[in-house]
């Protein structure tokens, strides 16, 4: 007879029969009956009516029967709390049984009976079992504490079980340690702030010792617990890593992944130049590769984790590209995940191999996969510039296959390639246009329309093409409609004569016949633009588009950091933080990676706290605000400039001016301690609050990094000594301005752009009421305050005026680029003049690029954007030139000497965020320099060169 018969009885009166059998005298019969009961229970029948009869069987010395009865109890005690009390005596008795198996069984079961009334009876037996001589009982009791805590947390604390549990971390048996750690970790999770799991170097050491001895499952608990620890310094971090590394070769993949998590986290603290860091990187690759030999389900989980690891540290797997190649019998979800990782690992070194694979994939059967493969080719082109040409030709090959969905995907990615490499691959447009009719997906249609609009001047029949789309305008999806509207407006601006009718048609379709607000709004904007100021419309619609970035689907860095802390868990499979998918009361803590090497400083130091408080305090509560407000008004206005560095410089200004203007020379070196002292004082807060445009929001970002950081940044700010200020030139002759003569110059002092003017009255009468205004200009220069000419200027008197400027004004490209048109008004009339400013005054203080970034950027900027200039008759050596340029915020990043030729690599950043990279070659003894400039906006190169010339020759 076998057990399967238990599942077959469904007759009536079954309960009655069972009852009789349970009360039988024969042990065997009893046992059979309990089994039947449990079988019924499993399939979901209600057998709770048998509770008393089953509990009666509990008093037995047959362990098998006892286990069955306990199984039943666990299931039904909750629904029969009063009856459950009947069992308590037996439990208590069993807890003192000489057989450790029975003691453990009793403790384990009692914990699972989730009835409040029972818990109080549980305490005494549990206390004994926690100190039992048998480790099997102790490890069971350790888990029982967690169970009890879940039912009645207060009771556990009152009874002091937590302390006993902590003691068990030092137990001699590793299984007990592991369970104690698991229980404590879980309890600690519900009290996020308690110091329950007090991780210090001593306990960590104990855990690491237990790690070597306990079972694989225990190792997982311990490793997960270790991952929550933050080592004090890089040396401790390294020593933990060394002891965890052997786990990487464990056969259990969960152990491996938990070890990877610990290593990834602690690696953050290791300095990158450490030998050990490199060793560790090498050691991480093989276990990750091995994970991929598991079943597809596990492979998928592994790939999701590897995807995270690759985003954080691509160097680990950069040589393992081949293992991510798709096998033809991989399930589709594995294929897609592998494809994603392949792109992330693609680099110049392996791109040929990757492209060959992708091309192969694009001919597969599975439509989804093929689409992804085609997209991947496009992403390769965007990521690895050297491969762009091959990618484009591969895509063209694929378009030739005429397979509908391949063509559509190819067109979508080619659009992106155009965005990334403008004016390079437009020769393929003709081929694309041939496939116009086969496009039936909105995304592909929209992409094609964009291409036609963008390159309307090169496509002879662009108007016909777009007109053909217009016929079914209202049946198109919004995406296509918007794109079509823009494309036709672009076309109109490029070929206004032939397309007037077309543009009117689309504008009326968009504004009058559509009920989509987005479309309508865009339609109206174009309409007004076109009707009021076609030139402005051109500016807006045909504006230069920013280049698209390399990788569009990277996980946002902070989320990535959090996910790295959750490697191996569900979060890493969903790629969502636990808070996004866990409901309910259990507190979820956001985890963060530890700070980087050597700092040894806690991220949440009290400094940050006070800084945050200081910056959040609204200006209104500061008593001295009114008084300071006016005084500071002039000097603080520069803080209205945008971007992170100006706030720091504004800060500098504030601090400086409060202490009087004479401190300028101290600024470079001593601003740090100075700022530190001032950090908490209300005065500086007032400084923050004073300029209304620079509201708190612009400050919250830098402040989160701590005031100290802010000042660190400021430490690099301004070295006013070295700044080159051209001599004043005559801007407005008295002849043209009814006796007002203006000469002036521009300078950058302490991070603030200034216009310095001398106003001379050559007329016969007193001049008053000066005001100044700028026309729109290339860099958005605008006066940051009114022109301060306080006293009337009497005849033949000269007065110096300094006007601080900011760069948040309206922008319009000027010819030449650095041209500035100014209007000055006084009591007599308004006068206009134009002047040119040295572009060097727009170089910001944080224009020093990281070396790597410099290298990458230099390579990234296409060759045609490079301009070369000759600088003649310059008699400085390279070092002198470098320091001189540094004064004007042209920073030397590296110097190389090749065959007696000095090469300086320099970077500078304009106020509008444009980076200019330069290479300066100087031959010893030759007064002629060669300057090569690379910039994404090559127009500025000429002006930048002029600045070089001006700075170096003066």
């Amino acid at each position, binding site marked *: 007879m*076998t*057990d*399967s018969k*238990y599942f077959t009885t469904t007759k009536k009166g079954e309960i009655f029969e069972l009852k009789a059998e349970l009360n039988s005298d024969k042990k065997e019969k009893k046992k059979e009956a309990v*089994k039947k009961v449990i*079988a019924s229970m*499993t399939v979901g029948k209600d057998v709770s009516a048998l509770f008393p009869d089953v509990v009666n069987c509990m008093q037995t010395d047959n*362990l*098998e029967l006892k*286990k*069955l009865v306990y*199984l039943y109890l666990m299931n039904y005690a909750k629904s029969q709390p009063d009856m459950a009390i009947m069992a308590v005596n037996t439990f208590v008795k069993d807890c003192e049984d000489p057989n450790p*198996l029975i003691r453990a069984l009793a403790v*384990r079961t009692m*914990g*699972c009976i989730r009835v409040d009334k029972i818990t109080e009876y549980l305490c005494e037996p549990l206390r004994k079992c926690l100190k039992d001589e048998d480790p099997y009982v102790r490890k069971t009791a350790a*888990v029982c504490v967690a169970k009890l805590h*879940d039912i009645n947390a207060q009771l556990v604390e009152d009874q002091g079980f937590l302390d006993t549990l902590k003691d068990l971390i030092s137990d001699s048996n590793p*299984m007990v340690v592991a*369970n104690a750690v*698991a*229980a404590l970790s879980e309890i600690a999770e519900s009290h996020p702030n308690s110091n329950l799991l007090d991780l210090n170097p001593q306990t960590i050491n104990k855990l690491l010792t237990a790690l070597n001895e306990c079972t694989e*499952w225990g190792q*997982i608990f311990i490793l*997960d617990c270790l991952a929550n620890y933050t080592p004090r310094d890089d040396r401790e971090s390294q020593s933990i890593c060394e002891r965890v590394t052997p786990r990487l*070769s*464990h*056969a259990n993949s*969960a152990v491996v*992944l938990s070890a990877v998590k610990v290593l990834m986290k602690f690696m953050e603290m290791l300095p990158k130049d450490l030998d050990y860091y490199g060793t560790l990187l090498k050691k991480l690759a*093989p276990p990750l590769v*091995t994970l991929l*030999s598991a079943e597809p*389900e*596990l492979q*998928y*989980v592994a790939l999701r984790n590897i995807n995270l690891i690759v985003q954080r540290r691509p160097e680990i797997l950069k040589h393992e590209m081949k293992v991510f*190649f798709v*096998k*033809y*019998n*991989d399930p589709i979800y*594995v294929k897609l995940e592998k494809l994603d990782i392949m792109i992330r690992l693609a680099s110049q070194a392996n791109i040929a191999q990757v492209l060959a694979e992708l091309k192969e994939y694009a*001919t597969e*059967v599975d439509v*989804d996969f093929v689409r992804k493969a085609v997209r991947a080719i496009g992403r390769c082109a965007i990521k690895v510039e050297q491969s762009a040409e091959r990618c484009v030709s591969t895509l063209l090959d694929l378009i*030739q*296959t005429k397979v509908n969905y391949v063509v559509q995907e190819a067109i979508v990615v080619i659009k992106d390639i155009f965005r990334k490499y403008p004016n390079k691959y437009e020769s393929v447009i003709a081929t694309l246009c041939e496939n116009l009719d086969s496009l039936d997906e909105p995304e592909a249609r929209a992409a094609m329309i964009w291409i036609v609009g963008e390159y309307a001047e090169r496509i002879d029949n662009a108007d016909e093409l777009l007109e053909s789309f217009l016929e079914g305008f209202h049946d198109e999806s919004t995406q296509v409609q918007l794109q079509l509207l823009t494309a036709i407006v672009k076309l109109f601006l490029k070929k206004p004569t032939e397309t007037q009718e077309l543009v009117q048609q689309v504008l009326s379709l968009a504004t009058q016949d559509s009920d989509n607000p987005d479309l309508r709004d865009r339609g109206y904007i174009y309409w007004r633009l076109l009707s009021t100021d076609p030139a402005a419309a051109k500016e807006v619609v045909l504006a230069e588009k920013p280049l698209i970035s390399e990788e569009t689907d990277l996980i946002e860095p902070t989320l990535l950091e959090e996910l790295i802390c*959750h490697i*191996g*868990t*569900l*979060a890493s*499979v*969903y790629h969502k933080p*636990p808070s996004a*998918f*866990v409901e*309910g009361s*259990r507190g979820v803590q956001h985890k963060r990676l530890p700070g980087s090497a050597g700092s040894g400083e806690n991220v949440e130091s009290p400094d940050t706290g006070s800084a945050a408080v200081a910056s959040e305090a609204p200006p209104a509560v500061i008593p001295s605000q009114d008084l300071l407000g006016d005084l500071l008004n002039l000097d603080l206005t520069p803080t209205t400039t945008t971007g992170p560095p100006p706030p720091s410089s504004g800060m500098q200004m504030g601090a400086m001016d409060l202490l009087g203007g004479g401190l300028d020379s101290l600024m470079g070196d001593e601003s740090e301690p100075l700022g530190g002292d001032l950090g908490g004082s209300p005065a500086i807060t007032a400084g923050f609050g004073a300029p209304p445009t620079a509201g708190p929001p612009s400050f919250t970002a830098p402040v989160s990094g701590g005031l100290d950081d802010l000042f660190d940044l400021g430490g690099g700010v301004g070295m006013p000594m070295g700044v080159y200020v051209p001599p004043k030139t005559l801007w407005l002759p008295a002849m043209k301005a009814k006796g007002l003569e203006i000469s002036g110059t521009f300078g950058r002092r302490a991070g603030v752009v200034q216009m310095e003017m001398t106003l001379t009255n050559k007329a016969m009468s007193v001049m008053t009421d000066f005001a100044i205004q700028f026309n729109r200009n290339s860099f958005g220069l605008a006066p940051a305050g009114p022109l301060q000419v306080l006293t009337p200027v009497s005849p033949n008197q000269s007065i110096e005026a300094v006007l601080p400027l900011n760069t948040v004004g309206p922008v319009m490209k000027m010819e030449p680029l650095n041209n500035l048109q100014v209007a000055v008004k006084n009591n007599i009339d308004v006068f206009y003049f134009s002047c040119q400013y040295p572009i060097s005054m727009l170089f910001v203080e944080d224009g020093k690029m990281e070396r790597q970034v410099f290298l990458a950027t230099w390579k990234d900027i296409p060759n045609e954007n490079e301009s070369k200039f000759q600088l003649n008759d310059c008699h400085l050596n390279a070092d002198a030139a470098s320091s001189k340029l540094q004064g004007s915020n042209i920073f030397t990043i590296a110097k190389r000497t090749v065959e007696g030729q000095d090469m300086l690599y320099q970077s500078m950043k304009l106020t509008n965020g444009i980076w200019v990279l330069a290479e300066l070659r100087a031959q010893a003894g030759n007064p002629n320099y060669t300057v090569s400039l690379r910039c994404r906006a090559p127009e500025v190169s000429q002006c930048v060169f002029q600045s070089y010339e001006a700075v170096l020759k003066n």
Partner: protein
Amino acid sequence: MISQVFILSSKGDRLVYKDFRGEIGSDAVGLFYDKVTALTGDQPPVVMTHRNIHFVHVWQGGLYLVATTTAADSSPFAIIDFLNRLAALIKDYCGALSEKTVQMNFALIYELLDEMLDYGYVQSTSCDVLKNFIQTEAQSSRPFSLLDLANVGLFGADTQQSKVAPSSAATRPLQGGKSEIFVDVVERMSVVMSSNGMPMKAEVEGEVKVKCFLPGCSEIRIGLNEDLSVGSSHLAGYGGAVRVDECAFHPAVRLDDFEAHRILRLSPSQGEQSVMQYRLADRLPLAPPFRLFPTIEKDNAGRLLMFFKLRCNLPPKSSAVNVSASVRVPKGCISLSQELSSPDQSAELQPHNRAVIWKIPRFPGGTQLSASFKLDIPGLSSASTLEVGPVGMTFELPKVTASGLHVRFLRLAPTQHRGPTQRWVRYVTHSDSYAIRI
């Protein structure tokens, strides 16, 4: 932390259901079944969610083994591994994993679960540890019968030969069996070959498994090839040496003699365990087992002609079994006519997969087979010949290891045991993914 574990039949009947933490009601079972049956092919089945319940499952022996959890920090790896171990343990204890054995032994399985998990924490999955606690006797489904040969699986091909153990040996329960010990070397190979027969990628993943039926077995010694080298750079170029790139060992394996003599020493617990796992990429010691010579053209009548010569590169004594080649064909194929070189082969067109499947039940080493297919495809263009895609092959190579790894000897410590112990060593290589590009 695992909240519940349940085992469902393929029809969704509950066979075993145990709640460890009382967080989720038993309606999770129904929820799971609804979800898993609604899955489409391209959705990863690994982790499924419903509100804050996460389901992790494996599908083995026609059963769903499912674990649920509510904790975000649970490791899906650990849970899947745990379920696989559970399945292995059920096999070890009950002889096989099937709806029937689970039903017959549910009390035993509950007992196992009780010891394996406590409050959702995995305690132990080792057979040796668990057997100290388990009271219930396993019920074997039926005595060994010839019918078992029907489900031969892994080692089925050569059951007639006396040197190979009948496959039913592996499906007997542990308790009360003969004193036997099996060492299996199982390899899976994935190869991508370019159209000119050059392997573009070749990889072998292998495993040495020990299945032990001896209660309280003391130490066994497994000797591997003496010239085995581990690591990629080592001894490369000296030809002939058996090489693996990486290997990992079961924690119980003692490696004292591994460096010098390539001997693994261990005291196996009862049941099956994977003693060593290894991986080998690129430079395989032997040529890939199959090479294809395709000719593809269009005839005047607008049909697509495919002529294939397939050569088996194994040594003449070995042969491949259950060989199947799947050739991707252009879409729109309506009929296939075929000419095969021997009558035991077969071929069929599967229009929905766009594939022609060519089956060869037995393929001796050193021989060559050919097939010619004519496909009717309305509107065939010359570009369509490009759509004839890679050929994927599946096969089994009994008594062959692609890496060349062999067991030199299998010795048991002399002291123990009353009766003689039967020792078996078996080899097999499977195709994992074998693709030939055209």
